[in-house]
């Protein structure tokens, strides 16, 4: 491989080389970082909710008053369950990915002043886990007698004594324990301790990964067995596969008919909730993918352009080489080698730029550190792109007849 002569000849037209190398470097810098952000956002948007997304929906009512609301909740649940095709229904205080709900600080020791974690609190009936189809890893579900009926307008309401936590929360609270069943934690308001009676695999918080605090990964939640007295009531409903859309309409009719003067405040499937929550992430990912596509296109066309220019400028030279015994494949190899050199030069520069850009974004934009795998992936794709792009002009160069050496003055 005639690397040295190719290099020395290439260096005689430095401008073109520098421009292409610079373009490759800048492209790699942006590509590597953008790919990582796309992956990160897409992963978050596709995260497992723990819930049966395809078949669950939420329907919320806004009533005129709270008189007899407990009985009303139970009746609403019965009406919902009676709809053919409904597998289960339950009152709940909040829905995953709905962007509305509450968090609370918890401790494992009543004397602690700092919270060990800030999980999201779901309150619901003994049917909630079944309705959301959460996966119980250990322990048991609530039974009906444990469900408290809480009216916060009145003093001295009973406090919950048991809870079911997510695996992530269990690990946060008791990192060194194999099983957390029977362990106690505190909501930190001077309330009595709460015993963990079950652990579910996943239950995402209403916000997923919080944008205001990226430490909040969105997988720490716990469920309390309770109903609340309030005018706004959410019901989680799970249907048999394929029937959700129809049942959502039916549920609205049924609940409206049950209480005069009531309004249906929300009626959204889990898929809709997910789409609403992650619209920003999707837009960002799509936007970046478009930019990445355009970048690759521009780089490829730049390489094709420069290579074509050089092929044209070197027609005579190519003819001479052929006259001196170069085969067609030798000419292709010449151009590919030259191109690989430029690409490698650009990639090395670009790697430095990518890391520098990432550092800058880490400090200004709270980005994560770029994993080297993305840099490698970007580098390999650009090299591949470069070689593919130069093959066209290189093949054309190889077609130049050796007779050009003698025929053109």
């Amino acid at each position, binding site marked *: 491989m*005639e690397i*040295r*002569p190719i290099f*020395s*000849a290439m260096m*005689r*037209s430095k401008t073109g080389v520098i421009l292409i190398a610079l373009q490759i470097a800048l492209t790699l810098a942006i590509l590597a970082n953008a790919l990582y952000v796309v992956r990160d956002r897409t992963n978050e948007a596709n995260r497992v909710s723990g819930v049966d997304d395809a078949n669950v929906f939420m329907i919320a009512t806004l009533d005129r008053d709270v008189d007899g609301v407990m009985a009303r909740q139970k009746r609403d649940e019965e009406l919902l369950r009676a709809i053919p095709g409904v597998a289960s229904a339950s009152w709940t205080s909040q829905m995953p990915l709905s962007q509305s709900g509450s968090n609370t600080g918890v401790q494992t020791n009543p004397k602690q002043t700092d919270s060990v974690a800030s999980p999201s609190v779901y309150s619901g009936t003994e049917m909630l886990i079944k309705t959301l189809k959460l996966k119980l890893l250990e322990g048991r579900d609530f039974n009906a007698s444990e469900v408290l009926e809480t009216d916060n307008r009145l003093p001295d309401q009973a406090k919950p004594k048991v809870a079911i936590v997510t695996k992530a929360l269990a690990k946060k609270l008791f990192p060194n324990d194999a099983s957390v069943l029977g362990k106690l934690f505190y909501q930190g308001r001077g309330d009595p301790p709460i015993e963990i009676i079950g652990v579910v695999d996943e239950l995402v918080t209403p916000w997923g990964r919080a944008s205001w605090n990226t430490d909040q990964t969105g997988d720490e939640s716990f469920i309390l067995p309770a109903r609340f007295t309030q005018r706004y009531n959410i019901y989680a409903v799970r249907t048999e596969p394929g029937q959700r859309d129809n049942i959502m309409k039916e549920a609205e009719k049924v609940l409206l008919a049950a209480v005069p003067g009531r309004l249906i405040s929300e009626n959204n499937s889990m898929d809709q909730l997910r789409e609403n929550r992650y619209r920003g992430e999707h837009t960002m990912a799509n936007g970046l993918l478009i930019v990445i596509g355009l970048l690759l296109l521009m780089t490829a066309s730049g390489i094709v352009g420069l290579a074509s220019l050089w092929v044209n400028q070197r027609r*005579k*030279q190519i003819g*001479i*080489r*052929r*006259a*001196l*015994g*170069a*085969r*067609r*494949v*030798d000419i292709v190899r010449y151009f590919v080698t030259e191109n690989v050199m430029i690409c490698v030069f650009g990639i090395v520069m670009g790697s430095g730029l990518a890391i520098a850009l990432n550092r800058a974004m880490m400090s200004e934009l709270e980005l994560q550190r770029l994993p080297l795998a993305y840099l490698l992936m970007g580098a390999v794709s650009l090299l591949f792109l470069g070689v593919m792009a130069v093959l066209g002009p290189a093949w054309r160069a190889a077609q130049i*007849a*050796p*007779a050009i*050496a*003698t*025929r053109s*003055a």
Partner: protein
Amino acid sequence: MIKMQQLSKVYRTHLIETHALRGFDITVKEGEFVAVTGPSGSGKTTFLNIAGLLEEFTGGDFWLDGVSVKGLDDNARSKLRNEKLGFIFQGFNLIPDLNLFDNVDVPLRYRGFNAAERKRRIEEALGRVGLSSRMKHYPAELSGGQQQRVAIARALAGSPKVLLADEPTGNLDSQMARGVMELLEEINSQGTTILMVTHDPELAARAQRNVHIMDGTVTDLTQETRLALQHAVEVA
């Protein structure tokens, strides 16, 4: 060394058929120094290109150093060209982006010699043409005559059997031209076959044998005809 029998070359465009060479017969023995003359458009360059395996021919047969060239594919012809032939062009045709060393190196790379062998041959070739001291210089820094010498060194570095020269002194002044011709004569005396296209009769006279191409056919010129031609030129 070179044997062509009933060779023909026809160029076809949409409407016109040009017969550049017709029924061409020529045999060049090893060690001969042949000058090829003829008016422009006669087919001299076509003949040289075919002899140099730079172009394919339409009909007839062609043997180079005992090997039949007819029907060989591009790769085989390139290989043959690389191993058996050396080229010298009117316009020198050195690669401007490479220094002298690298210029002479080009055909050797395609030959597949290792680095040590190549270095040896390049130094020897440049030495033979008297330019070893300027190995790292670029063609643009040399005079026309020096550039042609480098081209000759490049042609010789691979120890070819036949040297093909297309108006080698066309772009040189008389003094440089003489120098080049002396070099060629020296090379020929060491056993290399030379086929030189020229329209300078004085140069043609220095070759052992002259062939004249006119309208695509070739004729060997006898001594008398050569002298007559020369005389005609002097008078005119």
